[in-house]
C-alpha cells in the first residue's frame, strides 16, 4: 500500500502488520469507531460474505 508523505511514523508492531500484508487503513477506520459500531460493521461484513458464498453455491449447483 502506498504511504502518503504526511502520514506520521508508525511503530514496529504497526509496520510488522503492514509488512505482513494487512490493510492498515481498515484498522485505522475501525479505531475511529466505537466498539458498538465495530460490532455492527462486522455483522454487515459477515452477512455480505455469507450472501456472496450462497450466491456462488447456487451458481455452481
Amino acid at each position: 500500500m502506498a504511504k502518503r508523505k504526511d502520514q506520521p511514523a508508525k511503530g514496529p508492531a504497526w509496520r510488522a502488520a503492514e509488512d505482513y500484508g494487512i490493510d492498515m487503513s481498515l484498522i485505522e477506520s475501525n479505531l475511529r469507531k466505537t466498539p458498538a459500531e465495530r460490532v455492527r460493521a462486522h455483522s454487515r461484513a459477515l452477512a455480505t460474505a455469507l450472501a456472496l458464498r450462497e450466491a456462488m453455491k447456487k451458481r455452481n449447483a
Partner: protein
Amino acid sequence: MPDLDNLIARLIQNEVDLVVVGGFAATTHGVTLVTQDVDVCCDFSPDNLMRLQAALSDLHPVHRMPPARPPLELAPESAGDFKNLYLDTDYGQLDCLSSIDGIGDFEQARQHSIEITLPEGTCRILSLDALIRSKEAMNRPRDREAVLQLKAIREQLDGQP
C-alpha cells in the same frame, strides 16, 4: 443466517455472566478479521447455565459436536457436569468455555476484561492485552494474524512510536 449481534444481545438481556473472548472480542477491539461464531468464557455454575439455556430457548440450541446434534437440555442438577458447551443456534454458533488458553478460568478472564456498551446493554469482553496473550497461547495461523493486528492496535492506542 448468523445473527451474532442478536445472539450476544440475548445473553446480555438474560444476564448470563460471561466474558466475550476470541474473534468476536478481537472485532470489538478493531481487528478486521470476520468471524462466524461467538466464543465466551462463562461461569459454569448451574444458575448461570440455566440463564444461558433460557437465553437460547427459542433458538433451537443443539450440541454441535456429536453427530446426532442433541438439543441443549440442561437441568440444574446436571448442568455442573459440563466443562465446555459447543452449541449451534438459529443465530449462529456459540462456544461457551470454562477456561481459556493463556488466561485461565472464568474468574481470571473476568479480572482481565473490560466493559463495553452495546445497544442492548453492557457486556464484558477480554481486554486487549489479555486477548493478545490468549491468541499467542493458541497460536493457530488465524490467531497469529489476529495477534499482529492486536499488537498494532495496542501500539497505536499507546501513541507509539
